[in-house]
């Protein structure tokens, strides 16, 4: 038998939900096997079982043909299973070598033998073409190299099976290409890879086989080269998915949002946004593209009033709003779909109807002489629920905490669009949502644009930016790298700019 790992008929139940229902995955030696499914489909649970974080209720795991019990990650390591987590587990002020040996420090007498370790790591890095400097401090190296350090950590521990959990979420397109090369090198050297992802394009380029999971159930395992992206999407979602965003040609109108020389201090007193200027006109979608943590959050917080600006100006329909309170900005015609729907977007312990008036509860008709007008609030919620197809257990009185992420997000989008804003700021509007909800929210954003509103879209998903935007402003290191027209650019150009390689402004 040439399977290196077999997970057979795995079942795992959590209170109220079957996360994995009779799932079997077989990993051949030397293959890249993708695990495809929407958020919450059960991919992570399955991998956590393999990595020893959960115990399965039913089913068995075989490694090299032997039935094994994996009770904790150390046992998984001993069996040659390693995991590259989505969020790296690295000590920032340690060198790469120090991070890699953490837990298995080589000693000579009482002292650490760093030199030997460093040498071993250098050799591994060369063998798999990882291009890692073992003596560099983590805080000084790029995200891509941090990820490669994580990979080295596994190789140093002699892992034969590597699990990658959504490895491309934090990378620029160029870094993704590099990672794909590295994964190929690894398999050529005999390693086997399990790749968790919901990005079909990556699977198509890199994986050999693909197992699709939907709502905890296994849909099937397919050979990637014989299956089209559309077919895999259909397996993942359970229906035909349209990938194309319909967008009609349209001339942009007046400038609605004009940001000039904006500088903002970050949380540590460092200037995280530097002299940033751009504008959004009515009837267009402007996308802000960039790798996570390059100043997007600060930009949005400055525009919406959550953060004070250091210098510069923000003009909304020619009025300087940089001193306005958040409420005054809202009443001036700004709406904001926030990046973190749980932290900012909703009061999770409030009911859906209460959340739908979160910004307007004190205005007529929702308030009358300091009292809430519950029947008007109910009507308002019913309208948004109808218009935006928000599904929940008990309708307007559902506590929002109990709703699914997709429906929470639809509710927020509904609330913000219902304010009929001149400027709609949408930050990561589809983060963590299933394909169906993504399609729907994209349609709604384009509707806003088509009806002559200005839309500012901030997203880490490059595809989303490219598909929806009319113009794209690229941000790197808190500075504007350039502006491009979406119809005249491509992933490669934007990717390079995201990495900080400049380009002249196109007007």
């Amino acid at each position, binding site marked *: 038998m040439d399977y290196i790992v077999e997970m057979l008929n795995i079942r795992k139940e959590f209170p109220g939900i079957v996360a994995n229902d009779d799932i079997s995955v077989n990993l051949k030696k030397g293959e890249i096997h993708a695990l495809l499914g929407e958020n919450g489909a059960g991919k992570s649970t399955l991998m956590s079982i393999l990595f020893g974080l959960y115990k399965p209720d039913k089913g068995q795991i075989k490694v090299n043909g032997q039935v094994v019990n994996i009770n904790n990650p150390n046992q998984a390591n001993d069996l040659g299973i390693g995991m590259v987590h989505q969020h790296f587990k690295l000590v920032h002020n340690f060198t790469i070598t120090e991070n890699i040996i953490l837990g298995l420090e080589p000693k000579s007498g009482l002292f650490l033998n760093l030199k030997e370790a460093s040498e071993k790591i250098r050799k591994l890095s060369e063998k798999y073409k990882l291009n890692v400097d073992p003596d560099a401090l983590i805080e000084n190296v790029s995200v891509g190299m941090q990820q490669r350090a994580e990979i080295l950590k596994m190789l140093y521990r002699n892992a034969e099976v590597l699990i990658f959990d959504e490895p491309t979420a934090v990378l620029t397109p160029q870094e993704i290409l590099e990672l794909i090369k590295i994964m190929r090198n690894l398999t050529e050297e005999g390693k086997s890879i399990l790749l968790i992802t919901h990005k079909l394009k990556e699977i198509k380029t890199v994986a050999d086989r693909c197992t699709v999971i939907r709502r905890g159930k296994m849909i099937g395992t397919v050979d990637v080269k014989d299956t089209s992206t559309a077919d895999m999407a259909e397996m993942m979602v359970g229906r035909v998915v349209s990938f194309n965003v319909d967008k009609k040609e349209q001339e942009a109108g007046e400038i609605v949002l004009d940001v000039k020389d904006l500088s903002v201090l970050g949380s540590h007193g460092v200037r995280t946004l530097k002299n940033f200027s751009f504008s959004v006109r009515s009837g267009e979608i402007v996308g802000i593209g960039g790798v996570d943590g390059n100043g997007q959050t600060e930009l949005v917080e400055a525009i*919406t009033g*959550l953060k004070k600006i250091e210098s510069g100006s923000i003009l909304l329909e020619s009025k300087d709003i940089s001193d306005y*309170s*958040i*409420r*005054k*900005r*809202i009443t001036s015609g700004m709406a*904001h779909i*926030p990046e973190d729907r749980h*932290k*900012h*977007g*909703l*009061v*999770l*312990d*409030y*009911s859906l109807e*209460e959340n739908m008036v*979160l*910004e307007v*509860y*004190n205005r007529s008709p929702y*308030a009358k002489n*300091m*009292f*809430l007008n519950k029947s008007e609030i109910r009507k308002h919620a019913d309208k948004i629920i109808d218009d935006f197809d928000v599904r929940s257990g008990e309708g307007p*009185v559902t506590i929002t905490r109990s709703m699914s992420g997709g429906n929470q997000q639809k509710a927020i989008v509904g609330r913000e669009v219902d304010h009929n804003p001149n400027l709609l700021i949408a930050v990561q509007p589809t983060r963590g949502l299933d394909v169906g909800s993504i399609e729907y929210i994209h349609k709604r954003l384009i509707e806003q644009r088509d009806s002559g509103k200005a839309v500012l879209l901030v997203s880490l998903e490059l595809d989303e930016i490219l598909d929806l935007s009319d113009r794209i402003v690229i941000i790197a290191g808190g500075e504007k790298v350039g502006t491009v027209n979406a119809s005249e650019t491509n992933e490669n150009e934007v990717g390079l700019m995201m990495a900080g390689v400049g380009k002249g402004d196109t007007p």
Partner: protein
Amino acid sequence: MKIKINKQLYIGLISVLLGLIAGAILMAFTGNNPFLGYSYLFRGGLMNIERIGNTLATATPLIFTGLSVAFAFKTGLFNIGASGQMLFGGLCATAVALTFNIPRELLLPLMMMAAILGGGFWALIPGLLKAKFNVHEVVSTIMMNWIAYWTIYYSVPAFFKGEFLETESRSIPEFASLKAEWLTNLFNGSFINYGLFLAIASVVIIAIILNKTVLGFELKAAGYNRFGAEYAGMRVDTNIVLSMVIAGALAGLGGATYYVGYASNIQIGVLPTLGFDGIAAALLGGLNPYGVMAASIFFGIFHSGKGFMNAMTSIPPEIGDTIIATIIYFAATSVLIERAMAIVSKKVKGEN
């Protein structure tokens, strides 16, 4: 909504039941008959009209402090300073009572106003500290407790020294007391006073503020999710101060019902435990104003009944406090009860 209230009610009742069972085990362990013990405990609190009056009078300040803690909790603040606010509010009311010689119809409202302002002021300081400098209110309200304690310690002997004792203030004149002749007579000479009506009114007003008004919507939003409230354009810092002041005013008024209602003077060197018992009442009441009132009256029965139990049996009165503590323990760990309820209801459903 209905389901949620019922769930809170069940949790409260189950906590009480578990607490009583634990108390019974303790009584049996000390060699006493628990049934006899409980019968004397409840008879001590409820057996005649006078004792019922005393139970209600004991519960009155507790309703206020419980309401104060619950209100602050609902708006995301932990007010441990109800004792200090109560003490200072009580001092203000006493000071007015001992200073002004005006008709009762004017004096009583003036005293109550003084108590509300005093308590509110005592909570204003931690509120400002939290809003401006992010000083945690648990720390600052505890400090304010001791500032109140020492303020009373020096100001009472200096300005309102008692006739016989240095350690307490003069007694307030009868016409300045919240006790009323008709009420005292109705309850056969018990301590019951107008404070109870103030308490009931406060419960209703706070319930309305929290559930029906724009202000309550805003304060609760900040309590549940400060960042969400900020995002929605609410002025969270102002609301923190306002919440603290309202909580303090409630505790201050509670102080008035204690020092110029239940008692008739103010003692120095005593930090009333009612402020902390208020946390217990708030928790057992599930932070619901009406629940807080019910919990406070229930605790009132224990406080006024434990002496009788001790007199009639050899059960020490501390058992009463232990039972209350146990009930609080169960109420505070209500998540466990909730889970147990979920499992039970699942099983029941499964069998059907």
